[in-house]
């Protein structure tokens, strides 16, 4: 695949469509030569980013779409997931399974943690409607580490 290629996907703000972005990211990563393990990591991270955008960014409003821009370069695949929300300025917190199992913490709320844990770079950017995004990167040189 030619380095510097990009793919744009627009998803309806409806849960389930994150799988379209997930499949697209997986196909692009496979073309770039990423291993199956890394592709599985990317799929989960992209799905969680899209779910956050659909639920918390666009509030399941089907008149809004979630933008997904996948850009390849020689050594990395970058995925931006863009929504119409205000963005996130909190840092991902590590889930406390003990507190969750004892009912002291919401069992949900693990998406950002998983995103950060599964990719090489994860950044959340705040902006006006249509400009807030999360940026994920997986790097080819991390393949053998």
């Amino acid at each position: 695949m030619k380095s510097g290629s990009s793919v744009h996907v627009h998803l309806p703000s409806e849960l389930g469509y994150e799988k379209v972005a997930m499949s697209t990211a997986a196909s692009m990563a496979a073309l770039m030569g990423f291993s199956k393990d890394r592709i599985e990591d990317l799929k989960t991270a992209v799905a969680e980013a899209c779910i956050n955008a659909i639920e918390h960014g666009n509030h399941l409003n089907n008149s809004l779409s979630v933008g997904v821009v996948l850009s390849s370069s020689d050594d990395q695949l970058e995925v931006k997931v863009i929504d119409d929300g205000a963005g996130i300025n909190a840092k991902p917190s590590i889930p406390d399974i003990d507190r969750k199992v004892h009912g002291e913490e919401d069992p949900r709320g693990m998406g950002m943690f998983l995103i950060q844990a599964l990719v090489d770079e994860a950044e959340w950017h705040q902006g006006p409607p249509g400009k807030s995004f999360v940026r994920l990167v997986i790097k080819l040189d991390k393949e053998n580490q």
Partner: protein
Amino acid sequence: MQVTTKVEQRTAISASGHPVGVLAFSGDIASTSKDAILAAWHALDGASSRVLLDFTGVDYINSSGIAIIIQMLLEASKPGGRSIAIFGLSPHFQKVFTMVGINKYAALHTNEAAALASL
């Protein structure tokens, strides 16, 4: 447009001779799975103090789906609750379940025989 979650219930016998309620999932495990999974969980025989969760037929699990599993762990941890073991996860989801700490409350096994031997 999420794929429907199917849950099949059956009974197995553990290596120590105890009955084990088995919930075998197929389809997606996501927020839309909550009613199907928790209904099957609550419908388990009250005598089923040992429960095996079979993910062999599951391709997609997201964080909302993991939250449903944690809800079962929460109910199982109460007095008079249940022991839970898990099998059939792909290596990726074994890693994800370990990352969030589910393995602390439900042992993860590669196959049913190993899971039944642990209960």
